[in-house]
């Protein structure tokens, strides 16, 4: 969807220790997410409830939500990137993306 002006959104941050925000609405690629004075631009379109990196997350570093590690980054994640199955993983149970499996 082409947009003249990138829309600004305030993602939900559940804890000060978090390095991701939760998108309150579906947000288009290129739109700006703002938390306090921090701004990131979305790399891709992100659905409601999905996570957006608010800081650089290095490979092997914890992804933090609710103030707790919810998994580890499986590659370097840049601010503004969608954080999901393609770049983070559980420490406990392997999560399979069944829809994309052949």
């Amino acid at each position, binding site marked *: 969807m082409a947009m003249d002006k990138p829309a600004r959104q305030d993602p939900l941050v559940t804890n000060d220790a978090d390095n991701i925000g939760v998108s309150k609405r579906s947000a288009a690629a290129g739109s700006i997410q703002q938390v306090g004075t921090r701004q990131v631009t979305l790399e891709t379109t992100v659905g409601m409830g999905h996570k957006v990196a608010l800081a650089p997350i290095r490979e092997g570093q914890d992804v933090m939500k609710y103030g707790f590690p*919810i998994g580890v980054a499986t590659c370097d994640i840049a601010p503004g990137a969608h954080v*999901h199955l393609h770049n983070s993983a*559980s420490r406990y*149970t392997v999560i399979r993306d069944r829809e994309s499996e052949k």
Partner: protein
Amino acid sequence: MTGQAMQGWLRADGHKGICNTVVVAYLVECAHHVACEITCPFEGQDVHVIGFPGCFPNDYAQGMMEALCTHQTVGAVLLVSLGCENFQKRRLLEAIETSGRPAHLISIQDAGGTRASVTAGRNWVTDPIRQIANVPKAEMTPADPVIGTICGGSEATSGIAGNPAAGRAFDRLVAEGATCIFEETGELIGFEHVKAEGAVSPELGDALVETVQKAVRYYDTMGDGSFSQGNAEGGLSTIEEKSLGAYAKSGASPISGIVKPGERPPTAGLYLMDVVPDGTPRFGFPNINDTAEIVELIAWGAHAVIFATGRGSAVGSAISPVLKVCANPETFARMGEDMDVNAGRVVRDAAGLDEVDAEIRDKLVALAHGSRTASEDLGHHEFALTSKVFEPLGPACLQVAG
């Protein structure tokens, strides 16, 4: 509704049920159709089908059926047997009769087949419906309600809105003296040590960690965890993230004990139900779907179950009402008819939690005054029961105060 007491039908054992249901229970899959046919003329009345499909005996299933057939919501029970299955039908019948409820057993093989059994069953059900209408009603005290909670169709909004709303309701109910139960040790994975800190004793905390580690071992053997495609599509990436969101539905009250399905709690408070079988994994996944879990919460004595959903669930349940709290405003817009409470506003405004809790409270009270849930209005009375194996609870799991 604020301040109004709940009321229920007073059973011989002193429990008060907020519904007055006739249960038609099949004791093997071979009798399932006959049980359903028996209930057809009573559509719209509280006549529900439950049952156990297996032919092989299972102590857990036997105990569950006994707990369900003597649940405070149930006024009378018709058992439908094929005749040759291994279920201990006489034992179940005796347990129901001892509880003071009208009960009857039909064997399809003895009655002369399907048509004769259906006719006999319909004839029998007509009487108890009249009989149980005369069971006296009594006002419930704040200590009487037993409320379960479950989340299903979970996604990121569940952890932000639906589960915290259920948790807020649980905190209030426990403070008022009620008994609350949460389940799914498989969804405490990654968070068990934090939750264990909320246990009333260090020994109970250790037991809680052990039940969650048992769940990890069990799911590893099954080759799959408590995580669905819909969880991922809704923004959840890991079981830890799902657990953190799911954990919110139990609130912040101290955990009084761990129970297993079919057992009633000794005192009021907040309990964790350990739904993962003990010993070598057998019989497949601990709970094959949400309904199997709801049934376990009801067998544990739940008057009603608060069901927090994000993706959207359509289910209700036999026996006790299921109050659906929808976390996702987009889901509510699409399938609001299936929902009882719209918690979606909390996603964008955390201050909405108190309003949502007030709505949950009012809806629960209204259920005890004849109001119906969305799923009941739509005719949902799902039921699922499978085989499991449980060992007795360890000594640290239930520490009765005083």
